[in-house]
C-alpha cells in the first residue's frame, strides 16, 4: 500500500467485486480478509506473559490471552468475570476460590483446567521477571478440581482482584508452556526456557493468536477461530512499530495505518475537522490537584484545614473543564475510573461566599500571600502553567495572592517528594487500578505523609479506624461504603484539592469503530471494527 489513492481504489474494486459475487448468488463466496493496521511505538522485549510488563505487551496479551477477572471496557469501576465465572473470598480474606468457565479451549484444542491457572501464576511468581512482583503476595495455589482453583495469599490484600486483571496474570496452556521448556518450579528463574517460544506465539484462550513478532518491526495477530466468546471483527491485525509520533501522524493521514496509538495531544487537535479522521476523547489517568502542606512551618496559612477547605470551594471547576476538551472534574483524589470513585456528579462546586466565610473564620478575612510550586512542563497535552495562572486568578477571588513559582521538573519534584513545598500543584496517576490507591492521599499514605505532612495523629480516631479498615476489607459492598465515607471526609477536610482529570486523545481513520482507551491495556483490539 504505497499511497492512499491506490488503496482506496483497491478497496473500491474489492468492494465492487464482492458485491458482484454476492449478486451472482455466491452468498458463500470467499470473503476478503479483514485486516487492521495499528501504528504503535513498540516498547517491549517480550510477549511471554510471565516476562512482559509494558504497554505494548499489555495491548497484545489482552487479546491473545484471558485473565480470570477483568475490568469494564473503559475503566476500572468494577471487577467482571472473564475466565472465572464466579469467585468467593474466605472470611479471613486470604483465600480466593474461583470457578472456571466451561467450554473454554486453548489454541491447541485442549480444555482450560484449574491446573493451567495454578501453573501460569506460579510460573509468573517463580521466573522472577519484570511482572513477577504482582504474584509475590501469592502463598500457594491449589487446583481443587478441574474447574475450581483456590489461591491463598500471604496477607490480606483487597486490591488482589484488580491486580489479577493485569495481563501478567494471563492464563496459559500449561502443557504447551512445558513443551516449550517452561516450568513453574521454585528455580524457574534459572531453568525456564519457554520465553523464546512464547515471544513468537501465544498459548492462551483469547480472541486472537499471536502469529509472529519481528522485534521493533511488526507484531501480527490472527483471529482465534475457536474463541469461546464473541468473535472479533478483524481477521488479522498488524501492529507496526512506528517510534516517531510525527511519522504515525503522516502514516495515519496517508491511510497507511488505521489507528495511531502515540500521537501527541497537539497533533490530535491539529487533525480535528479532517473528514477521514476520527478522534477519541475520554477521561485520562491523571488527576491534577493542589497540595496544601499541613505542617505550619512549611505550609503557613495553607496548613489550616479551614483555608484548605476555602481553596477547594474557590476553584472554578467548570472553567478547567472548558479549558481542556474532554476533561472531567474529579470528586476526590481517587481516580475517576476506579470502583466507587466520586466523579463529576459528586464533585464540589464553586461557592465563593462560603469560601470567603471560611477564610474569615480561619483568621484571614483579608487573605494572605502564598507561593505555589509546580513543574514547568506540559504533561499529556496539558500545560501546567496555563492551569497555574487560572488557579492564581481563582484564588484571588477569596483574597489569596498566589505567586507562581514554576521550576524545572526534577528540581520541583525534589521539593514535592521531600515535603518542603507549602503549596504545590501536581498530578497523580493510579499505581494500582483499585480504590486502595486513594489511601496514598489520606493520613498514613505516602503522598499524604511525605509530601503534605498530613499525619494520622492529626485526624480523629473514627477516621483513622475507617482508613485502617479500607486497607483490609475485601467485601465489595463494604468497600464501596468505606471509600464513599472516606471521599466525603476528604471533600471536607483534606490537604489536597483535586480539580481536573484531563482527557486522553487518540486519532484513527474515520471508518474505524469501537475504540475505547483503557488505563490497563491501552487499547482492546477485539472491540474494533470497520464501518
Amino acid at each position: 500500500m504505497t499511497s492512499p489513492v491506490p488503496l482506496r481504489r483497491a478497496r473500491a474494486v474489492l468492494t465492487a467485486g464482492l458485491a458482484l459475487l454476492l449478486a451472482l448468488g455466491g452468498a458463500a463466496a470467499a470473503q476478503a480478509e479483514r485486516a487492521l493496521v495499528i501504528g504503535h511505538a513498540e516498547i517491549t522485549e517480550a510477549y511471554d506473559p510471565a516476562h512482559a510488563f509494558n504497554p505494548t505487551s499489555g495491548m497484545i496479551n489482552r487479546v491473545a490471552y484471558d485473565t480470570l477477572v477483568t475490568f469494564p471496557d473503559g475503566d476500572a469501576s468494577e471487577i467482571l468475570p472473564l475466565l472465572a465465572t464466579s469467585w468467593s473470598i474466605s472470611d479471613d480474606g486470604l483465600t480466593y476460590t474461583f470457578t472456571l468457565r466451561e467450554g473454554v479451549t486453548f489454541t491447541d484444542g485442549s480444555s482450560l483446567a484449574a491446573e493451567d491457572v495454578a501453573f501460569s501464576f506460579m510460573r509468573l511468581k517463580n521466573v522472577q521477571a519484570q511482572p513477577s512482583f504482582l504474584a509475590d503476595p501469592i502463598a500457594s495455589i491449589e487446583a481443587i478440581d478441574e474447574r475450581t482453583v483456590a489461591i491463598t495469599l500471604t496477607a490480606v490484600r483487597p486490591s488482589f482482584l484488580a491486580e489479577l486483571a493485569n495481563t501478567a496474570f494471563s492464563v496459559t496452556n500449561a502443557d504447551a508452556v512445558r513443551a516449550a521448556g517452561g516450568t513453574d518450579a521454585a528455580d524457574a528463574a534459572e531453568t525456564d526456557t519457554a520465553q523464546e517460544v512464547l515471544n513468537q506465539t501465544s498459548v492462551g484462550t483469547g480472541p486472537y493468536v499471536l502469529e509472529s513478532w519481528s522485534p521493533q518491526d511488526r507484531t501480527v495477530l490472527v483471529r482465534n477461530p475457536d474463541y469461546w466468546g464473541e468473535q472479533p471483527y478483524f481477521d488479522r491485525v498488524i501492529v507496526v512499530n512506528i517510534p516517531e509520533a510525527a511519522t504515525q501522524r503522516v502514516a495515519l493521514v496517508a491511510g497507511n495505518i488505521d489507528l495511531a496509538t502515540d500521537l501527541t495531544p497537539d497533533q490530535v487537535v491539529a487533525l480535528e475537522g479532517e473528514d477521514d479522521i476520527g478522534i477519541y476523547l475520554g477521561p485520562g489517568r491523571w488527576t491534577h490537584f493542589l497540595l496544601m502542606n499541613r505542617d505550619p512551618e512549611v505550609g503557613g496559612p495553607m496548613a489550616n484545614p479551614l483555608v484548605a477547605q476555602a481553596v477547594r470551594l474557590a476553584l472554578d471547576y467548570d472553567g478547567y473543564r472548558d479549558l481542556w476538551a474532554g476533561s472531567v472534574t474529579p470528586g476526590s483524589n481517587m481516580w475517576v475510573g476506579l470502583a466507587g470513585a466520586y466523579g463529576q456528579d459528586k464533585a464540589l462546586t464553586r461557592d465563593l461566599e462560603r469560601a470567603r466565610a471560611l477564610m474569615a473564620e480561619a483568621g484571614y478575612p483579608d487573605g494572605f500571600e502564598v507561593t505555589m510550586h509546580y513543574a514547568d512542563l506540559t504533561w499529556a497535552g496539558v500545560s501546567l502553567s496555563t492551569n497555574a495562572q487560572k488557579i492564581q486568578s481563582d484564588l484571588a477571588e477569596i483574597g489569596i495572592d498566589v505567586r507562581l513559582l514554576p521550576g524545572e521538573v526534577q528540581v520541583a519534584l525534589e521539593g514535592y517528594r521531600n515535603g518542603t513545598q507549602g503549596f504545590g500543584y501536581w498530578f497523580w496517576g493510579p499505581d494500582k487500578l483499585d480504590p486502595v490507591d486513594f489511601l496514598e492521599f489520606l493520613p498514613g499514605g505516602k503522598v499524604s505523609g511525605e509530601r503534605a505532612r498530613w499525619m494520622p495523629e492529626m485526624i480523629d480516631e473514627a477516621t483513622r479506624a475507617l482508613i485502617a479498615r479500607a486497607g483490609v476489607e475485601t467485601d465489595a459492598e463494604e468497600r464501596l461504603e468505606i471509600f464513599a465515607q472516606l471521599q466525603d471526609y476528604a471533600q471536607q477536610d483534606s490537604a489536597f484539592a483535586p480539580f481536573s482529570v484531563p482527557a486522553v486523545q487518540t486519532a484513527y481513520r474515520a471508518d474505524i469503530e469501537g475504540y475505547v482507551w483503557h488505563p490497563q491495556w491501552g487499547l482492546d483490539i477485539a472491540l474494533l471494527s470497520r464501518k
Partner: protein
Amino acid sequence: MPLYQYLLRRVLFAIPLVLGITVVAFLIANAVPADPINANLPQSALNNERLVQAFREKWGLDQPLHVQYLTYLGNLLRGDMGVSIRTNQPVLDDIRQFLPATVELATTSILVGLLLGVTFGVVSAVWRNSPVDYLVRVVALIGVSFPVFLLALIGLTVLHAQLGWTAGPGRLGFLVSRPPHLTGLYTIDALFAGQWAALRDAAWHLVLPSLVLGLYVSGIIARITRSSLLEVLGSDYVRTARAKGQREFLVIMRHGLSNALIPVVTLLGVLYGNLLAGAVLTEAIFAWPGIGRYAYRASTSQDFPAIMGVSMLIALIYVVANFIVDLLYFFIDPRIRYA
C-alpha cells in the same frame, strides 16, 4: 610493492587497531556510572540477594575488570558476543536481525549520494562561478546542513502523504508479507524467492529514505569533488592535455575526474560507516528497524553486551570500509603501487 604485500600490511595494521577498539569500547562502556543490575532487574528481584548474585555471576559482573575484559575477548575470538541483557537473545542474533535493514538502506543511500554528489561536483567545477555552480552549491549546502530527520519528515509529509509519489514509512507496505529470510535484505530475498510484488514494494520503500540520506551524503561529496576537481583542472598535466588539443569532455573525465576522485574515495569509507552507525533519527522517522535504533535502545538500558557488540560491529565496519578504500587507492592511484 606487489598487491599481496600491500594487502598483508593492511591486514597486519588492522589487528592492533581492532584490539585497541575492544579495549577502548570496554573501558568506556564500563566507565558509565550506572549499574546494569538496577537497569535490568525488576524491583522484586533486587531485594533478593540470591538473584542479584546469580545475575552478577551470569554476566561476570563479580569479576575484576581485567578478568571481565579477557573473558569477553576470549569469547569474542570464538565468535561469541554474549547475550543481550535486555532482549535475552545472543547479541550476534540481534545484530543479524537488525543489521540487514541498515545495510540495505546505507548501500542504496551511498549509491544515490555518490551519483548525485559527483554529478553536482563536476557540474559545479566545470561551470565554476556560473549560476549553475551557485545553485548546485546551495543545494549541496542544504544537503549538508539541513537536519536529516527534518528532511525525512518533510519528505514523508509532502512526497508521500500529500502527493503520493513515494512509499510511506517502513521497509514494506504494512499489509505486504516479508519475503522468506535469506540475507535479511528484503530486495535480495524477494528476488531470490521470486516474489515480484514484494521486490517492487521493498524497492519502492527504499526510494525516499535513500534520497534523503543520499542528499545528505551528496552535499559532502559534491563539495569535495568540486574543490578537488578545480585543483586538478588547474594542474600542469591538464594544461598539457588541453594543449594537445584533446576534447574538453575527455580532459575532464579522464585526466580531471579520475584524479580528483581520490579524496572522494577516502570519504566514501567514512561516509558509509557514518550511514551504518549514525542513522538513528532517520531510522526512527522512517520506522526502519535497523541497527541504529538497536544501539540507541541498548545504550539507554545499559545493556553492556549489546553496547559492546554494536561498538565492535561499527568499528569493524569502519576498518573493513577503510581496508576497501585502501584497496581502491591501489588501483586508482599508481603512486601508491610504487611507494
